[in-house]
């Protein structure tokens, strides 16, 4: 049986597929899943030919804007978004790295204004050798892809 089918099918909505299993909880956090009030189905550690273990998130009746969804690319650039209508995939797109990102991540610099006053973070997204790094708009320090911490 295909991986997706182990998780309940939705009639219409958005499916985030091909998530590396280890990235699932970061993605749940970054898309602020707790603010979505429709049905949500999550599967993890599903078999995948590509990654070994993958995860999938199905959100019924909601079609977030790509601006909103593209921040997923900061965590998992291979994730794929499927738009579902009538139980069928009507559109399939890869997430794309945004140029800037606000709010979601912490700046790695403990002396940065964003870690010392109530100031939202703002970064320029730098894609170097396939790795995503964030350059702080305020302190100019670079937060490497290994140090991405979600700010809450």
């Amino acid at each position, binding site marked *: 049986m295909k991986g997706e089918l182990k998780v309940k099918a939705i009639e219409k909505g958005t499916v985030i597929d091909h998530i590396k299993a280890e990235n699932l909880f970061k993605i749940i956090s970054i898309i602020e899943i707790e603010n979505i009030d429709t049905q949500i189905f999550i599967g993890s550690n599903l078999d995948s030919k590509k990654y070994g273990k993958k995860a999938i998130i199905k959100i019924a009746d909601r079609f977030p804007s790509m601006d909103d969804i593209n921040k997923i690319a900061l965590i998992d650039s291979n994730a794929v978004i499927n738009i579902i209508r009538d139980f069928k995939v009507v559109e399939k797109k890869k997430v794309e790295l945004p140029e800037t990102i606000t709010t979601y991540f912490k700046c790695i*610099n403990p*002396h*940065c*204004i964003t870690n010392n*006053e*109530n100031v939202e973070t703002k970064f320029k997204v730098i894609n170097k050798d396939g790795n995503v790094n964030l350059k702080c708009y*305020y*302190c*100019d320090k*670079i937060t490497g892809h290994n140090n991405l911490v979600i700010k809450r």
Partner: protein
Amino acid sequence: MNRKSLISIMDYSKEDIFKILDLAEEFQNNPKQRLLENFVIASLFFEPSTRTRLSFESAIQKLGGKVVGFSEAANSSVAKGESLKDTILTVSNYSDLIIMRHPIEGSARYASEISSTPIINAGDGANQHPTQCLLDLYSIRKTQGSLENLNIFLVGDLKYGRTVHSLLMAMSDFNPSFNFVSPQQLRLPQEYKDFLNEKEIEYYEHDKLDENIKYADIIYVTRVQKERFSDPVEYEKVKNAYVLKNKMLEETKDNLRILHPLPRVNEIDIDVDANPKAYYFKQAENGVYVRMALICHILGVK
């Protein structure tokens, strides 16, 4: 952001910088111009820095302007727990320009986003100190006649030294060659080397301050601080390898000038001070003219 704020030297174009340097030259020749009589300028030093504060305040007073503010956070509402945002919003109501120094990195950029008046960053922690960079550029141009095609030696702490990083970025538009002289532990970070490679700027790295300085037009010396070494033995090993002494200057070029952002500890021996190639005290004096020029440029009075 207020377009005229100066937070990082990279905020200003080559044209802005030249305009300020030309104006500074004019103030050096004729400092008695009461252009700021109708202006109130806030000087907010959230951490003390007497040298920088006096340079700014003297620049304002030479031009007839009024200064309000504080010289350390302990004497201000900040000590009562006021947020930076509230301080800036309040002060921007009754001043035409805010000069701020703050220990937190990015604080000046943030202030420029919320303030209705322009901000001059007089140092935000280890991050930026753009007026130091302007006065370095002024001193280089003044002593060499031009900023173009110079051979610049940067000596000391090239890893953490923010003045070195800004100077390197600012000079990159003028076809320089760089020689970096530092201990292994304090070498120029890779991101700046990437920047130079991208711009195809020639540079060399050295472990020792040696006879290569005979090719230098500018030697810019910075302090090697003990705190930067995790192992004090390592510091003891290198601390004397980067001290410039008068006898080392014998073979150097006539146009060579030695710069230092000050304060100095022992990295330039005092026997250099009397050498006409020593320019660091004059460099500090130039800071006043450059700050006069910058303030007038921002306020649009000149």
